[in-house]
């Protein structure tokens, strides 16, 4: 990435062909009723939330950490956090968006605590894991060796730690989960133009962070 990135202007707030949709009302959906039951400490409702989102949460964590055992442990921690914090859920976004944010934060907490973000992989990865990853990684380039891919993953995780929690969740929902701008608007309760501006700012910040990192190196 180019190290000489200067401050780039934002996209026009009202651009050609953009549609500023009205906010999705997350207070009246079926999901909202479920959340209210969890907030009232209904254990059956909480069980439903866990069963509905456990696979999603697990795959998000695995995507970031590539370690199955730790992924399950962190998934448990995510749902414990959901249980204790659900009373603060304000229905401005979808439940999935909120859980997604908690999940990504927990992954970063985990990486921070281990203080081996650089190579959490080296210490935790067995040879077998590395080979499995080599075979199954949705590679940027199939010809790239596994250690280079690990270094690239390390780099992007480092860069993502330089942006805010909101920006991190948004860019991951877009690029990792594959949601469109329209879908993100519906999930977050923001309008499409705001989403575009936020995504553009995040991309700029990531490029600047990459520039600083390469200058330091």
């Amino acid at each position, binding site marked *: *990435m*180019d190290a000489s*990135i200067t401050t*780039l*202007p*934002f*996209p*026009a707030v009202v*651009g*050609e*062909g953009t549609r500023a949709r009205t906010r999705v009302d997350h207070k009246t959906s079926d999901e909202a009723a479920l959340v209210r039951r969890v907030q009232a400490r209904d254990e059956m409702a909480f*069980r439903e939330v*866990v*069963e509905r989102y*456990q*696979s*999603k949460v*697990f*795959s*998000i964590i*695995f*995507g*970031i950490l590539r370690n199955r055992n730790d992924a*399950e442990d962190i*998934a*448990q*921690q995510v*749902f*414990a956090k959901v*249980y*204790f914090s659900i009373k603060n859920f304000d229905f401005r976004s979808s439940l999935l968006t909120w859980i997604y944010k908690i999940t990504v934060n927990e992954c970063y907490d985990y990486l921070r605590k281990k203080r081996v973000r650089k190579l959490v992989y080296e210490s935790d990865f067995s040879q077998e894991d590395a080979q499995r*990853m080599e075979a*199954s*990684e*949705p*590679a*940027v380039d199939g010809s790239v060796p596994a250690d280079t*891919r690990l270094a*690239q*993953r390390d*780099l*992007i*995780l480092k860069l993502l730690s330089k942006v805010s929690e909101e920006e991190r969740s948004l*860019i*991951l929902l*877009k*690029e*990792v989960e*594959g949601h*469109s*701008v329209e879908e993100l608007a519906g999930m977050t309760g923001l309008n499409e133009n705001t989403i*575009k501006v936020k*995504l*553009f700012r995040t*991309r700029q910040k*990531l*490029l600047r962070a*990459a520039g600083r990192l390469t200058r330091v190196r």
Partner: protein
Amino acid sequence: MHREIRDHIEDVLAGSRPDTLQHTREHLAECGECRGEVRDMQEQTALLQALRAPEDFSADLRPGFYARVMERIEAEGPISIWNLFIESAFGRRIAMASLALALLIGVYVVTAERSAEDSIIALQAPLGASPQTVVAGEDAPAREISQVDQLQTDQSSEDAVLANLVTYREQ
């Protein structure tokens, strides 16, 4: 980055909307600066997409996941307000700052009381009394006062004797 690209960057990166792409493709063919920035963003996007779980990844958790979550919840218990001070770095800083403030106030109060006592003692001491006298306590000034009284009494006796002599000579 020029507006032609900036406004459609998400479409450019996603490779969607051919009508938009035609317009942007023309601009990118002419503008090296935009071309470079788009290339950087494409590389970044590819790196981000490498964080996707593999397609053949089985997200099936071991049976009993919900039970393990509930065990953890029971072990952690409800969040107490005290946990915020004990567990979070911010809380610990607040606690340390409060402790330091309490210590400062304590030192100030003790110092202020001592200097107030010293002032009272200094006011009570007679003029000309040495600091040693003041510190030594109340006996010493009492002795000094009685010596002054004695001197005054001797002076009056002397006056009385002189008065008698004068009276005797007149007689």
